[in-house]
């Protein structure tokens, strides 16, 4: 859409939308960017970090010419090749993710504007002036009211449409362009998430400008079964906050337990520290089958699609609260309250109720009525043993398990009363229920596993939202110099090899004084393991965005605060203007901010767009083994690739030979290996000798810890001068470097990609 005219009507319109006349910063080159506007940045990124495709299917089945076989260089009937098809699927996934958050944002915004009006001021508290780093950077608008956020989300809607357009038959023919479009969609995802969470913080008074948010009880045992239990599942707090208001106003909050799964749990605990978090997605089906929930209120995203069917099995009642997910249920939104309650209580019916206030009242009434009559017991040891005894070791469960787990051994153990091994296996289970479904002996496996499921409860800190400007000022220097070895963001879903992995990684790096931030299911599971004195990482480490801090940022949409923090470093600390200046922000983050994302159990399309959005901004992401099924990574080849950057100080291109960061989307098979890769991906070319030696210290020591001694094969690539070598390993490293004939090289004063590819951004723009 980029016509080039003197000043087009369209450019005028954009300037109006972003209130260009307000001079809080000069308007940068790309206000409300469209598909072509950041394409040259993408192409530069993709030159070093080339798309790596692992086709999950050899075919394309998207139109009626198909199926088309795309193997061995074949093209489909439309001319498409396998790489382009993978990129197209990736774009579709990122669009599904982006639209999920944009839809969430649009709805919550509508809900809150209904409540507070469009002029409701955006105030993120004393310590946050830069309230919307993603929005400001991408669009150029400084949002001051909920109404401004609407302007932003409407821009996102438009871009989503144009991007989805390009996935149609006979459209884009280049995998690079599809990747550029996926990067665009994913950048917009962070804009949409930021809109959603700012609206929520402002509209629901979620915590902001504070670090030590309340501690929340977590785990199913934290839920008082003796009371009526309302379970909230999904992502959208409109329902849950309304429910809590209703309970408070009607003095029912002592009588009713409110518990949540997935992000709605995280949102709800930002609104009320009395709400309980049951666990992550991977415990959803397990918990529902326990029957503990009297009423299940669903909103959107990451909800079992068979919820009413599962609820029927334990006679829980379901209320679908959002039009995204209506399960074919009758829409009772306009019905008489009593009638709904009656049918739910007596006829065990489920309904869609799209009015949160009505839904809340119905949920409470129904829960109070049916709870006394429902029994909510875990399975008995005897019953479990008996059921497990029916196992014939047929292996069918292992064949269908997405985590490749065989239950046979566990069933044998359980039948013999040995629960330790099965307990370990349960930690690996991602709770999909496929084994149950496939078992020829009809063993209700998830129910049997209740006997080994941990009955512990844990403490997690409520999500705190955005990082404070003040915190950024404190860590800006140590981070960019490297004396804080890195910011690690543990995000995403619970499709990981083992539920303990995230907690173990967080513990390791927090101890090493990395800054650790978390969101979503990752934030939940990080709290589900106890270390010394039975304390979780949230109890062991300070809640500050500082060396050794462990920060629960919040739900999925809070991921925008993580990219936001990176942008803040460039803007607040490095004083680079951000307004409509995405390219400069991304270049800064990629080349100078030692940040790394870890999406260990990434599963959803949202996780795909969140990660890809981090990538466009220059943040590398480490993924778990399942993520190879996303079909695409961004990898470099350290020995072969071109590691030249512009030294903006010297104004000359320098061949650093240093692969930092080496990859931006990477899959590790085990958490041990991830813990070796993560510190490496925090290395940046602008590290000071001191900073670099600290980073290498962690890299080497973690390498020795998990790779059985010796030194990293690629260590020499990251040592610029002797001063970079960590003290503890001086001797060993020097010997090694001598052996392989290492030569010292000049560190780069001010590394940047600007100047190494065609862009409208002048070199001056990256110098502060």
């Amino acid at each position, binding site marked *: 859409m980029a016509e080039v005219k003197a000043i087009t009507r369209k450019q005028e319109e954009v300037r109006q939308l972003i209130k260009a006349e307000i001079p809080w910063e000069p308007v940068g080159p790309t206000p409300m960017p469209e598909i072509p506007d950041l394409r040259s940045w993408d192409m530069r990124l993709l030159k070093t970090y080339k798309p790596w495709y692992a086709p999950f299917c050899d075919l394309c089945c998207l139109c009626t010419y198909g199926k088309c076989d795309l193997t061995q260089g074949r093209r489909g009937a439309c001319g498409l090749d396998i790489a382009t098809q993978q990129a197209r699927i990736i774009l579709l996934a990122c669009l599904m993710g982006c639209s999920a958050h944009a839809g969430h944002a649009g709805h919550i915004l509508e809900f809150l504007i209904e409540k507070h009006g469009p002029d409701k001021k955006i105030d993120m508290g004393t310590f946050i002036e830069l309230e919307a780093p993603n929005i400001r950077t991408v669009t150029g608008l400084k949002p001051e009211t909920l109404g401004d956020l609407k302007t932003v989300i409407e821009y996102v809607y438009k871009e989503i449409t144009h991007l989805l357009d390009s996935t149609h038959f006979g459209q884009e023919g280049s995998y690079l362009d599809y990747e550029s479009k996926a990067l665009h969609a994913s950048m917009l995802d962070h804009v949409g998430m930021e809109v959603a969470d700012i609206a929520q913080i402002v509209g629901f008074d979620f915590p902001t400008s504070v670090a030590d948010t309340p501690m929340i009880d977590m785990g199913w045992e934290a839920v008082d079964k003796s009371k009526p239990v309302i379970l909230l599942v999904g992502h959208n707090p409109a329902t849950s906050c309304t429910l809590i208001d209703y309970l408070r106003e009607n003095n029912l909050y002592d009588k009713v337990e409110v518990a949540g799964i997935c992000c709605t749990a995280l949102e709800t605990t930002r609104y009320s520290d009395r709400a309980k978090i049951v666990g992550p997605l991977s415990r959803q089906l397990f918990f529902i089958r326990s029957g503990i929930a009297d009423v299940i209120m669903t909103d959107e995203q990451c909800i079992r699609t068979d919820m009413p069917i599962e609820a029927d099995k334990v006679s829980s009642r379901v209320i679908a609260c959002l039009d995204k997910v209506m399960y074919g249920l009758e829409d009772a939104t306009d019905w008489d309250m009593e009638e709904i309650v009656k049918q739910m209580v007596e006829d065990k019916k489920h309904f869609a109720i799209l009015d949160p206030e009505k839904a809340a009242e119905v949920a409470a009434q129904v829960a109070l009525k049916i709870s006394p009559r429902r029994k909510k017991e875990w399975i008995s040891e005897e019953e479990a043993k008996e059921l497990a005894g029916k196992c014939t070791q047929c292996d069918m469960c292992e064949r269908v398990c997405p985590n490749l787990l065989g239950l046979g051994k566990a069933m044998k153990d359980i039948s013999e009363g040995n629960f330790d091994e099965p307990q370990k296996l349960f930690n690996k289970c991602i709770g999909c229920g496929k084994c149950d479904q496939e078992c020829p002996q009809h063993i209700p496996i998830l129910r049997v596993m209740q006997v080994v499921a941990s009955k512990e409860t844990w403490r997690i800190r409520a999500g705190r939202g955005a990082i404070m400007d003040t915190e950024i000022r404190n860590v800006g220097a140590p981070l960019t110099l490297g004396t804080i070895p890195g910011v690690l963001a543990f995000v995403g879903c619970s499709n990981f090899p083992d539920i303990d992995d995230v907690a173990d990684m967080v513990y390791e790096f927090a101890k090493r004084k990395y800054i650790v931030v978390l969101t979503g299911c990752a934030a939940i599971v990080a709290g589900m393991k106890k270390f010394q004195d039975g304390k979780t990482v949230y109890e062991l480490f300070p809640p500050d965005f500082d060396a050794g801090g462990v920060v629960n940022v919040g739900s999925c949409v809070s991921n925008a605060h993580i990219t936001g923090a990176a942008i803040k470093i460039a803007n607040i600390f490095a004083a680079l203007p951000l307004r409509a200046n995405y390219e400069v922000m991304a270049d800064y983050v990629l080349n100078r901010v030692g940040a790394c994302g870890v999406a260990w159990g990434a599963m959803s399309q949202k996780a795909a767009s969140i990660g890809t959005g981090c990538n466009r901004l220059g943040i590398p992401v480490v993924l778990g083994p*399942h993520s190879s099924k996303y079909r695409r990574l961004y990898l470099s080849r350290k020995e072969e690739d071109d590691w030249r950057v512009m030294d903006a100080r010297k104004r000359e291109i320098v061949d650093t030979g240093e692969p930092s960061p080496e990859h931006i989307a990477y*899959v590790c098979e085990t958490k041990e290996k991830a813990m070796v890769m993560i510190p490496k991906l925090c290395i940046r070319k602008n590290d000071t000798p001191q900073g670099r030696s600290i980073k290498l210290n962690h890299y080497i020591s973690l390498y020795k810890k998990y790779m059985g001694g010796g030194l990293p094969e690629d260590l020499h690539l990251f040592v610029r001068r002797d001063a970079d070598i960590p003290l503890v390993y001086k001797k060993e490293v020097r010997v090694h470097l001598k052996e392989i004939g290492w030569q010292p090289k000049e560190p780069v004063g001010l590394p940047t990609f600007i100047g190494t590819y065609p862009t409208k951004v002048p070199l001056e723009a990256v110098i502060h």
Partner: protein
Amino acid sequence: MSTMIPFHRVNVLTGIKSARLIEDAAEYANLIQKAKRPLLVLGPLLSEWSFDGKLLIEYALEIAKIANIPICATDIVKGKMVQLGTKPDSVYDAVEIVNHLKDPDWKGVKKEGNHDLVIFFGIRSDLEEQCLSVLKHFAFNHLKTMTLDKYYFPHANYSLPNFRKDEQWKAFLEDLISELKKGG
């Protein structure tokens, strides 16, 4: 033309071209010996799997030794090898090594040129199958792939069947070793 269903259903092939299923160790040995520059890619499961106490990584190392195949240690395999008193010829993760192998002009782990036969062993099956997919789609012109794991991998060029019992698998590996000895 027909294709076998892999043991782990998430790996089911959706396509036309799938691995040649081979149960005869001699045939495998032959393919390995015919290769000019084979490469053995080892995964972390080799130090979890064992046949009556003997870790499978020991089988892997034995195969490498006899047939004189360079080893790429993925993930944390290097550590285990060091424990066992040996060193890999190269250390790359699964996704990294296939990324190199894709490139026909890559020099290979021995700097003698890219490999023509890549043998996978001990990577979790979903990841291994995806890595095989990379090579199937983007390296089909210059190399072939083979697996030594217990189950069938559709995306490989040569694969073992889905062995019902460990014994069958063990037998195959032992036969392979003795066949390679003969050959060698």
